């Protein structure tokens, strides 16, 4: 079976690129799993969510946190574009915890910072 060519990019740099068996992204309406041969889709990412990528070389699936952005799927090419994007292994857990506490303490109507902080913790492998 063919593989997906995946690119996870932020405006400042390319975070990850390579071949993958599966990508799971969260849109505003719910999770969307992408396998090779998927129909072309252009989706809006949920701001502060987690993208799961299963590499084709048999490596462990890994998570990445994404902020505001979108993804496009066409001819087995998946590109995830997010203004904020971080691989799970690069996330500073202490910093993310602090961000979550700050977001909870801020007590305003904007839930985005809290969601982003939670997504960072989730991507780092910690339930929050």
């Amino acid at each position: 079976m063919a593989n997906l060519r995946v690119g996870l990019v932020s405006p400042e740099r390319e975070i990850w690129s390579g071949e993958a068996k599966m990508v799971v992204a969260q849109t505003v309406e719910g999770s969307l799993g992408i396998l090779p041969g998927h129909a072309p889709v252009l989706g809006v990412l949920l701001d502060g969510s987690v993208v799961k990528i299963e590499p084709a070389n048999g490596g462990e699936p890994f998570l990445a946190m994404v902020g505001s952005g979108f993804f496009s799927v066409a001819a087995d090419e998946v590109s995830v574009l997010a203004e904020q994007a971080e691989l799970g292994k690069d996330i500073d857990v202490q910093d993310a915890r602090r961000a979550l506490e700050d977001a909870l303490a801020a007590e305003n109507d904007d839930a985005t910072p809290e969601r982003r902080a939670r997504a960072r913790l989730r991507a780092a492998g910690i339930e929050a």
Partner: protein
Amino acid sequence: MAAQLRQLRQQIKSVKSTAKITRAQEMIATSRIVKAQQAVTASKPYADQITQALTALVSHHVGIDHPLLQEQPTDRRSAVLVITSDRGFCGAYNANVIRESEALMRRLRDAGREPIPYVIGNKGITWYRFRGREVAETWHGFSDRPDFANAERIGQRLTEDFLKTDAEGGVGEIHVVYTEFVSMLTQAVQVKRLLPLEIEEAESGKVPPAYEFEPSASAALDLLLPNYVESRIFHMLLQSAASFQASVRRAMKSATDNANELLGVYTRQMNQARQAAITQEISEIVGGADALAESGGE
């Protein structure tokens, strides 16, 4: 004579220390150009992808409608975003940008529009403040190493003003004056219209795939267009930063070259003066000895 010698020695010393400083600045700029270029390259995948997605989106929805794409014929005000640097020591870099934006504003005024400056970078800000001109908004502190958050802030403010009408203090179109990094030796000031976006029908053999949209095409467009504008601004900031470093390098290199040339001239003058002093001393001694011998001989 001795006074002239001392003066020259002092001048040589000061030119030497200036040359050391400019040489160091030149080397710093050289290393920073590489970093700035890397930043430009690293931002390319995102810019390419977003352009591609937008092209696909637009070409599938003929008659697509979004405020950011619409001409606003009733608005007479035009924003001019001027991208200058925070620091000087960069030759004509800022002067070129400002000259070009002045020319643009003159053209706009001739066309019956009212140009409104938006300024990035301390050098541009002081230029406008010194002349007492009104500016709509200024940003500074990131001209050396812009990050995306800066571009986002600027983009949000500009699109916000674009969506307002004249009466509310908004603008009808947005122009940007920035410096494109062509190569190490060439940087060109560019004037581009940022908004309203122009849709160009590109005739390419590749038909973009028939996308489905999650959750809807208009939601995707709402997100994509502002992002696209921000990514354009980010690109311009990065290009300007790279051009700035290249200008610094060139200015500092010619300063160092001039200092070295001056050193040669001063050193020769000093040698001449020293030689003249010695010659005079000898002739005085010889003359004195002759005079003594003459008077002693009688």
